[in-house]
């Protein structure tokens, strides 16, 4: 690529010119920043200012620019120069909007601005304009694992958008759970009657679709590769076939909760079925009055909701499967539609028919289905049928009902494959040579769905209660295996309508993944990012931290235990960079150096100056915006801090902290997202890892003979605008108490 030519542009608009000595900033950019070209402008973000920069890029062959003006989050449309590397020195939100007015502050304000210009110049010189992942992977076919309602929907919707699909279904025919149903809950108004599942038509469409290949009675024996270049071994009756695909949708559905685990509710006894069992009876009745297994016509039926669900004792399922209320209402209608004289009672504690389900509920009442708010305690054989003992919560009494048939509304258990939490320790033990562990590993492997050959295990990480979900509210499809998306009840409990929506959404994400992969571009949340990690293997000590800690399982190991990066699996969070003890991992535009040089660029007053210097490493997703908005809302804070945005706290390499302390910083603040159960880290594990690493920093501090308060970590939410300012000011107080760092002036 072309010779690097640097330029800095210093804006004096938005009162920057009034509050700062712009000439001084210019001098610093020239003398210390060593910028080949430095220009001032009174209104840099207007057409003329932008044009000036464009001209320099074209006519002056400028390749690296530092914009010293407002925050990197502001004026992004104006400062948009895709062909050059760019850094932003945040003089507005970061300096003049947060530093108190008045002459007594002029000097420190100026110092702060000077440093940000130094930092911007230092950073840009270490940046390389990302060129995108060189080994693009171009395969745009999609694999859909599971041929049920969700799987077929995913396949068809993607195929209709012009993508080729491979379906792998373990059964001998398509249909999954839906194929077992007599009818389904209505999707559209009037939401009054059970509907035909439409499965036959769907299966026919899928089988006939020119873009869809179906493997029946098949499973996935192995999956290797990455988005855009997955290689999948499909094991079928005819043996193994290899399918090359670019993206994967896992729609492996659910299994009904084992009825036999509910003996107290008559599970396993005669005349007690689950909803699946009732569907079977309804199918064989084929619209006529429903008969029991023993052939007796059912005159009375009781549906017991939440059977083995919403359990707080830890024995059964803790969650609610969402669909069961509507399903029981539908099944009660089976009886009423065939014979209005059949007594049908739905026994519930909270009836859950959200949205238009209310119409479905009304319709059932209209048909004479009786709804009883009660908690069943026991189902026992009685006479020719069953007796349901329950607490009537409205009439406030213990009572019972007799019925020819009892239907237990049991829950959905996801078919999510191997639970990696359990898997990893066993693998470690097996690698340690434990034969028992080796055996366990083999057994566990058998339950795998995807059989990924990833370093981090054969299936998708599970979030909670065995579901392969993401914990994001705003981004439900953020799985931790890039290019692989869970759809339907394997992701979280859901009804058929939601499953088809979910399947369609998952199909889109898979399509997006292959489109991104084909141009070497990052997937969410850094979508559009063309940078990617590289490692100087000659420096690598095969410590495996990167391969173990990557939240997305993007890094494998070769036979020599060297890391093997799969760029299109990578989400560019930099956790590997933060993990690497020998600092051999870097991105073109984000590296140990781009940050390290900024840290070093700061002008360090001596220890008698009474002007401490505090480094802030702030997560760009939440903490940095919060600092920005603190500026916007003029929450003032100390001029002694120097803030650097990082992609994720997980990318923070401890060398930055030791370097900072060595070069005389008096304190280091790390600001990242909440971790733990309700983590808010957009890279799932980043902030958690950072927190763990920082718990180790104390030793380093001891070696340096420094107080442990000199490095602190805060969880900062994006709304903490006022709080960040408070945290900073409190910390400056603290530092003043413990005094200036003794390390100043040693280098």
């Amino acid at each position, binding site marked *: 690529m072309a010779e690097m030519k640097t330029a800095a542009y210093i804006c004096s608009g938005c009162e920057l010119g009034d509050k700062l000595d712009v000439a001084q900033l210019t001098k610093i950019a020239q003398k210390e920043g060593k910028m080949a070209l430095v220009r001032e402008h009174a209104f840099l973000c207007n057409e003329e200012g932008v044009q000036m920069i464009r001209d320099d890029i074209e006519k002056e062959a400028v390749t690296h620019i530092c914009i010293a003006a407002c925050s990197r989050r502001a004026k992004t449309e104006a400062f948009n120069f895709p062909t050059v590397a760019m850094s932003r020195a945040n003089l507005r939100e970061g300096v003049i909007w947060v530093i108190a007015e008045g002459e007594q502050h002029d000097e420190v304000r100026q110092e702060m601005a000077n440093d940000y210009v130094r930092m911007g110049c230092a950073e840009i010189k270490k940046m390389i304009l990302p060129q995108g992942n060189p080994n693009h992977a171009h395969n745009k076919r999609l694999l859909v694992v599971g041929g049920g309602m969700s799987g077929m929907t995913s396949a068809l919707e993607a195929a209709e958008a012009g993508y080729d699909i491979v379906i792998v279904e373990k059964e001998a025919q398509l249909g999954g759970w839906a194929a077992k149903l007599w009818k389904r809950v209505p999707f559209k108004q009037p939401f009054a009657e059970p509907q035909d599942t439409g499965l036959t038509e769907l299966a026919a469409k899928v089988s006939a679709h020119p873009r869809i290949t179906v493997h029946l009675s098949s499973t996935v024996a192995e999956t290797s590769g990455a988005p855009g270049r997955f290689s999948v071994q499909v094991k079928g009756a005819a043996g193994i076939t290899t399918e090359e695909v670019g993206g994967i949708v896992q729609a492996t559905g659910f299994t009904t909760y084992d009825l036999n685990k509910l003996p107290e509710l008559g599970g396993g006894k005669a005349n007690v079925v689950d909803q699946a069992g009732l569907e079977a009876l309804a199918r064989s009745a084929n619209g006529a009055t429903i008969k029991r297994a023993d052939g007796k016509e059912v005159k009375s039926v009781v549906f017991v909701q939440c059977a083995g669900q919403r359990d707080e004792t830890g024995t059964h399922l803790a969650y609610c499967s969402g669909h069961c209320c509507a399903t029981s209402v539908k099944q009660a209608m089976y009886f009423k539609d065939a014979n209005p004289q059949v007594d049908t009672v739905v026994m519930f504690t909270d009836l859950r028919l959200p949205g238009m389900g209310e119409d479905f509920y009304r319709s059932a009442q209209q048909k004479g289905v009786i709804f009883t708010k009660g908690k069943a305690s026991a189902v026992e054989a009685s006479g020719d049928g069953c007796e349901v003992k329950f607490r009537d919560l409205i009439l406030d009494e213990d009572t019972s009902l007799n019925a020819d048939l009892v239907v237990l509304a049991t829950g959905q258990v996801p078919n999510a494959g191997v639970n990696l939490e359990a898997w990893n320790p066993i693998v470690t033990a097996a690698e340690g040579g434990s034969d028992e562990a080796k055996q366990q590993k083999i057994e566990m492997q058998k339950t795998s769905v995807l059989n990924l050959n990833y370093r981090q295990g054969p299936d998708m990480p599970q979030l909670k209660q065995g579901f392969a979900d993401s914990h994001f509210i705003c981004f439900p499809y953020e799985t931790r295996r890039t290019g692989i998306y869970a759809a339907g009840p394997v992701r979280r409990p859901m009804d058929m309508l939601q499953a088809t929506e*979910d399947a*369609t*959404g998952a199909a889109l994400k898979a399509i*997006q993944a292959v489109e991104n992969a084909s141009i070497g571009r990052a997937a969410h949340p850094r979508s559009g990012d063309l940078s990617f990690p590289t490692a100087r293997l000659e420096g690598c000590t095969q410590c495996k931290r990167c391969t173990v800690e990557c939240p997305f399982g993007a890094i494998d190991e070769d036979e020599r235990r060297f890391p093997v990066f799969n760029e299109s699996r990578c989400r560019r969070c930099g956790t590997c960079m933060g993990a690497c003890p020998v600092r051999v991992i870097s991105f073109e535009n984000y590296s140990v150096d781009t940050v390290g040089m900024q840290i070093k660029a700061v002008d360090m007053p001596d220890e008698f100056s009474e002007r401490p210097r505090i480094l802030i490493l702030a997560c760009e997703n939440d903490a940095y915006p919060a600092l920005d908005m603190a500026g916007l809302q003029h929450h003032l804070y100390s001029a002694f801090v120097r803030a650097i945005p990082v992609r994720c706290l997980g990318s923070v390499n401890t060398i930055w902290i030791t370097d900072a302390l060595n070069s005389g910083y008096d304190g280091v603040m790390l600001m990242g997202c909440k971790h733990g159960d309700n983590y808010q880290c957009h890279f799932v594990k980043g902030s958690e890892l950072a927190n763990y690493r920082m718990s180790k920093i104390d030793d380093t501090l001891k070696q340096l003979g420094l107080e442990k308060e000199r490095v602190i970590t805060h969880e900062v939410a994006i709304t903490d605008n006022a709080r960040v300012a408070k945290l900073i000011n409190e910390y400056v107080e603290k530092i003043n108490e413990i005094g200036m760092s003794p390390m100043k002036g040693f280098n």
Partner: protein
Amino acid sequence: MNASIATNQTILVVGGGISGMTAALEAAECGKQVILAERDTSLGGRTALLYRYFPKMCHPTCGLEINLRRLKANRNLRVMTQTEVVSVTGQRGDYNVTLKISPRYVNQNCTGCGECAKVVEAEIANPYEYGLSKTKAAYLPHAMAYPQRYVLDASIVGTADGEKAKAACKYSAIELDMQIETVELKVGAVVWATGWKPYDAAKIQPYGYDRFDNVITSLEFERLADPHGPTGGKLLRPSDGKEAKNIAFIQCAGSRDENHLRHCSRICCMASLKQTQYVREAYGEEGKSTVYYIDIRSIDRLEDFYQKVQQDPTVKFVKSKVASIKLHEASGDLVLHGVNTEGYHRYAEQHDLVVLAVGMEPESNGIALPADIVTDSSGFIEGSKDGGQFSAGAASSPLDVNRSVQSATAASLRAIQVVHKTSASEGAR
């Protein structure tokens, strides 16, 4: 914005809330051309006005930031604010759309420096606080507003204030003579992500929202709890600014009611459960929340949040649709009358603040939709008969954020299918 960029390969997304942004971004990140039209002055919609999300108790603006960054980084996506759809004609794959753009009176020169707001004197009811507070008539909608540009309220155009604002702007960003613009576009598919609006609580007469200051809606309560809200995050009740510590949450305020909304709005139970935790956050064991409900609908994994709240000693659950609310004149408190139907326990409970968990009504009930659009009995949009227009998120059904995003992502693919079918290119391989 110049309309020529739009072709029958373009997807129009109507509404810039979480659903619309998602639908637009997902399509754009698949390489499709998208226009995102938002009626308001900035993106974010209803969720931008929420304090926290259930069940993680995280902040909506966190996701908004990511979406805004995705949006800033994407060249396929054009955002138009203060833009409404006037008409959609033509058919699947080949629509002609007429858009009306209302004047912002501030152009792209705006740097967000805020000098105009400093000089303007007139104040207006803050549209981002449900009128709970006032704001200058020259304002930045909120800290996360995108576009990050000030807005001049039409009420000061042609007044001294307007002129002052114009004079104060060093960047000639203020154009007092801006006019309503009409733009004609060609698009291949349309995604309606027009979202929802809170049901008019005043219509629920027994609860006296229009008569009692201390009866507020769940959305207003979000603003009270938000540190950036009108009370700086303190739960101060409207009548006398007293800290509300004993708060009633009334479920199904408008929902599941044939006199109002016949559907269940799905989110209200979880929203109230979440809000009981605001009370705890504010007062610890001192606070007291009472939830009056018919059925608690904490569906699927959300159940564990319900279980957590049930274990909270500061939260009480009463299975009852509150019959009526009477004012306790001396204290300004409210007395809730009703019967707990689990057993038959008549109550007359005094609370210092009542929060109505108001139902979701389709925002589109207020606007004229193309004739071809099919809606359900509550007005939620199913889509167009010709299969070229789709609904996403709360425009399609009462959905929570997670499911809205799911729905928007699905709608995005359906829209892509339309433009794919009408494109010359044979699509991907």
